[in-house]
């Protein structure tokens, strides 16, 4: 984002906790990776204060200045991640989750053992290079929101049942339980087992697939940060259509060659039309026929139990604000309501001060932006579903809740 100006930079530092040797530093400016680095002395003192606190049994978690937020996090006592962000409205929550994702990405590529027991720093540095691509995509602007919500970005295909059937049939034929269809980083359909993947990897794998350059087929060894952090699995991807990929997570078998074109053709040739229909779904997320209220400029629907989310800013794309801004607005609003009104899990103890009384439950909240813009944001929680909407200024404020309730009811059968 160029209009962010030169100020908005994000620096990510990764250091070996015991020695303080920097493993890598990634920076991004205005959403694009840059080569600009922090001076070594600054890195050293940032790590130093954290270590100093740890020696005195004080956990330093975050610091805030007028425009910059710094978050420290150490993983398994061997890796320290530090992030500095001068983006507007950055919150600790966002940065903490970013660090979790970054560490997940590191585990995904090199495995937990390498990270907890660092024998050769230089070799680890080299190995970690493979993860730069994924990590940079977290630092920059993305169309997805899974890094923040820790829910899998999904799209709703028009003919989901056909795809689902084909998917399970294909999974049976290949003898792998973990199969999914991914369109530009968003999951279209997946097998039961795939949905049951643990939190970091369920978001990381589609994200990884979406961020890689187009290839006909891939065979990657991956560690699953939650499921199997020490034993690598194979991630096979097969491009069915440009942008639409079939992902398999499997052990040593089947080999890539076994997934010959014959097998693919048998299962997916008949479904070519539904697959084609999936392609534009990437940014839109909802099928064509689905009608949203005309005031809705952006939508984020989360299912907190299934850990899936729908995120789109496509409706009425021609109006102000731009898609980029809408995404940022919704992201910021999500952060705000998550930190204040709807804490992610009711059981998180650090929010104990906010728990007034279990009987006083927040259900909805809205926000009207100030003079000039007048956009309105509304969040509504019903059961396990949390809906966030960005609305145009002409929508009446007192009608926000009913509009949100309506939309949520309409979306309920889908997700």
């Amino acid at each position: 984002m160029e209009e962010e100006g030169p100020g908005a930079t994000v620096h990510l530092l990764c250091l070996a906790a015991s020695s303080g040797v920097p493993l890598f530093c990634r920076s991004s400016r205005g959403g694009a990776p840059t080569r600009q680095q922090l001076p070594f002395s600054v890195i050293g003192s940032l790590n130093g204060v954290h270590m100093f606190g740890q020696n005195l049994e004080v956990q330093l978690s975050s610091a805030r200045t007028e425009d910059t937020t710094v978050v420290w996090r150490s993983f398994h006592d061997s890796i320290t991640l530090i992030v500095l962000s001068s983006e507007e409205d950055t919150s600790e929550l966002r940065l903490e989750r970013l660090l979790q994702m970054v560490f997940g990405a590191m585990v995904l590529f090199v495995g937990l053992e390498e990270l907890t027991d660092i024998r050769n720093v230089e070799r680890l540095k080299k190995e970690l290079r493979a993860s730069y691509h994924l990590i940079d995509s977290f630092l920059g602007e993305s169309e997805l929101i899974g890094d923040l919500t820790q829910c899998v970005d999904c799209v709703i295909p028009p003919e989901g049942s056909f795809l689902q059937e084909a998917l399970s049939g294909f999974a049976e034929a290949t003898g792998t339980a973990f199969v999914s269809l991914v369109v530009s980083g968003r999951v279209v359909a997946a097998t039961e087992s795939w949905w049951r993947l643990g939190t970091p990897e369920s978001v990381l794998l589609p994200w990884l697939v979406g961020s890689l350059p187009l290839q006909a087929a891939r065979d990657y060894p991956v560690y699953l940060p939650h499921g199997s952090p020490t034993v690598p699995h194979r991630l096979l991807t097969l491009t069915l259509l440009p942008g639409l990929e079939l992902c398999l997570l499997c052990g040593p078998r089947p080999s890539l060659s076994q997934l010959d074109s014959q097998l693919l053709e048998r299962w997916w040739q008949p479904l070519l039309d539904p697959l084609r229909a999936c392609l534009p779904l990437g940014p839109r997320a909802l099928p064509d026929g689905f009608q949203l209220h005309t005031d809705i400029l952006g939508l984020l629907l989360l299912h907190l139990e299934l850990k899936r989310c729908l995120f789109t800013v496509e409706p009425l794309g021609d109006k102000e604000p731009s898609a980029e801004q809408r995404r940022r607005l919704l992201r910021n609003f999500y952060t705000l309501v998550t930190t204040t009104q709807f804490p992610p899990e009711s059981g998180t103890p650090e929010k104990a001060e906010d728990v007034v009384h279990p009987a006083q439950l927040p259900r909805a909240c809205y926000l009207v932006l100030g003079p000039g813009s007048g956009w309105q944001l509304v969040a509504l929680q019903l059961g396990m579903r949390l809906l966030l909407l960005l609305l145009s200024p002409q929508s009446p404020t007192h009608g926000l809740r009913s509009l949100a309730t309506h939309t949520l009811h309409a979306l309920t059968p889908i997700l």
Partner: protein
Amino acid sequence: MAARRRSHAGPSWRPGDGEPGRRDPADAPTSRSMASAAASGSRRSPDELRPELGSQDEDRGSEDPDSDWGSDTSAGSDSADLEPEWLDSVQKSGELFYLELSEDEEESVFPATSTVNHVRFSENEIIIEEEDYKERNKHEPKLKQFTKILKGKRLLSKCYNKKNSNDHGPVSILKHQSNQKAGIIVQQRYKDVNIYVNPKKLTLSKAKEQLKLLEVLFGIIHQTKWSWKRTGKQGNGERLVVHGLMPGGSAMKNGQILIGDVLVAVNDVAVTSENIERVLSCIPGPMQVKLTFENAYAVKKEAIQQTKKKKQSSTSDLVKFFWEEEVESVQQNTLNSPHIVMYLTLQIDSETSKEEQEILYHYPKSEASQKLKSVRGIFLTLCDMLENVTGTPVTRVPLPQLKNMTKDVAQTLKFIYASLDGAFCQVENVPCLDDFFYLFFQRALHCAKLHSSVSPSAQQYDVSSSVLLDNLPGVRWLILPQEIKMELDTALSDLEAADFSELSEDYYDMRRLYTILGSSLFYKGYLICSHLPKDDLVDIAIYCRHYYLLSLAAKQRIGQLIIWKEVFPQHHLQHSTDSNSEVFQEPEGRYFLLIVGLKHYMLCVLLEAGGCSSKAIGNPGPDCIYVDQVKTTLHQLEGVDSDINEQLTSSSSPCLSCADWFLTGPHEKADSLTTSPILSRLQSTSKAATPPSCRKTLFGDSSLKTRKPSPSRSSGGLDHGCEGEEGVTSNVHTTSDVVWKQRESQGSGGSEESGALLKITKKKSTFPNPFHLGNLKKDLSEKELEVYNTMKLTSGPENTLFHYVAFETMQGIFITPTHEEVAQLSGSIHSQLIKNFHQCCLSIRAIFQQTVVKEKKKALNGGDHSNSTNSAVSSLSPVKEYGVLFECSPENWTDQKKTPPVMAYWVVGRLFLHPKPQELYVCFHDSVTEIAIEMAFKLFFGLTL
């Protein structure tokens, strides 16, 4: 806490009395007045006193009644030449913090400050005293009696005095030295002296006269006859004042007995001049005799003596006041949660590598804080790199609140000490700062225990609201009707005009000492009238809040409070940069804050020296004339007292509803809460007359706390509605005894009121809150009624407003329902709701503050928009409205079969940036869609000081 005295509304003291804190003689000596010296423990030495003060030990001619500062003359007191009792607690820096509680509070607050033995003594002593002078000085307060006694003595024994004055000097110095040297030794009011006596010696020295045992045994000289002359009457015997010491006597050798001390007991037997000989003659043989003396100093200034003793621990006393629990445990708790204040310098002298030298000040010195102190390096380093780290790992206090607190502290300290550097870098400030932060942390960490006020509901309200309200840079304001307001305005204007004889420049033919810049009047912690600029008002309010003065006035009746302090209001001290002669230049003067409290009133006056008044030199203490003028103003306002109280309970501000009334039955779905049945029914019938059945349910719900819907709810209301007026009246009488009792305490007959009630219900087109009606004035005019009607804030037919806070930065005030109003709406749900409301508001306000900051920045940047607008678009920065919908249900729902009823309510915050920032927080029921801007208009309309 002792029950508040019912009589307080009555004329317990008259304006002409001159001594507001008059106590019953019986407990006068047990009453303590507390003076805390702002500037720490060391006692002033006599030569540093103002000449007037020092002169009272000398042979000061009490024959000149109009000595220059003739204290109580303006108050119309009968004792023209008496010093006000607070004079002795004036610090050498001129500061004064003098607090005297009303008697009920004193008893409850200090039951165990001195040992039991001493208390007993003091009581004994009182009785004697009291009987002595009862007839003569029936109306004279105790303190003055003491002063009189002393004066009388001096007057009558001139020769003695001359002889004695030589002794006096060294003696008092001696006292002083012992005090200063030890530091820890607290000057006691009573002291025990053990002296070895041998009565056998007595036989050797011929026992010539009687009444000389004291002299012979101990070498203590007591001159009876002077006292005889003075009192003219000898009842139970008089006090045994040590008038002199025999050279070589055991008393002198002992060194602890000083001239002027009063012997009160021998071996714990109370003695007077009458029984002393008898008691002493009972000493059988050589033995150690314990003599208990009352300090000379204490006799003179009994009340002040207590003060002196407490000077070191004054804050802990102040804290004790508010906790009334074991302070020990509280302190323990405080220590357990880490907290620290540090003021650090970044300019470290690299030459001297002394440990911890960069810390200019820190508090407290506890173990938990050691850890934080040791990690200060973290902050320092971060500071160095990132500049300005504000977030510190303080537990339990939400970050937004913490930020506000930091700001508040800085502001208050600036107010008190001109600058932060000045505050922290001067050694003499340190103990005082310790006190300051002690109070600060107590407030921050234990606000729950702090507000142990009268009723539990009010207490809860305090606790929950303090989260938000303590940090608003404003004062809680009470809207008063026009007539009362005018009266107050007039009184304050009169004071500010300063054209009374003594204040006018002609009177003494000299320049006046101070100009009164403005004053503000508080009643029970509510601001009721202010003639101060906003910045000064906020500064003073924060100061008062910090020293618990507001809550003190609200709960404990202040006997007398006088605070005098040089202050540095930033508003006045900022000199405008442009030297344009047209622009008003603040005079380079000094500013003094004078706070005088009487009962529930507190009047803060900001004085300016320099400018058009004479320049202040040195550290001037409080000027009696000004203090008296302020006091007189307060006396003058005595009559308005009851009116204001009435207004407190039934202010014309918007009516509130209790959340518990809205709990619908289980058959109701949460979503279809368009109108609750009870209210729609009320609305339909209220035009005729409120049906008694509704009343019943309402009262039942609130006072008996039954949450089950009563059967009468489901039945239609209209059939009840057609009942005659008499039926209604009688029904109301029978069903709402509780409320009526409340009203009767207002002193008006029940029947009249119910008549008024009916009248109102007929007049009003909407449902009036029954709780407010009883408190309306009897002579309520129709015009006023209309005002009440318009003050319904919500738009629907029912009143769905639960709570509100409206904050107006232009004038630095906010309005919110009074304690009394909230207390009337008792209900378990409601109190939770209020707590939740305030917490929610805190987070909303944090968002608003970001907006305000960004707007300011934008205004500073001015021109270049293209970048800033674009980035602003993508962030949530200019927020103007934020609302949260909550759902709640009864806490302990025992009925297993039915699902608990659910009530939904909104908490909405609205920020107005133009013309001046205003903030509004409301809490209302979900049934009616509200438009916040309309509510804001209604609330802020006519909100002017």
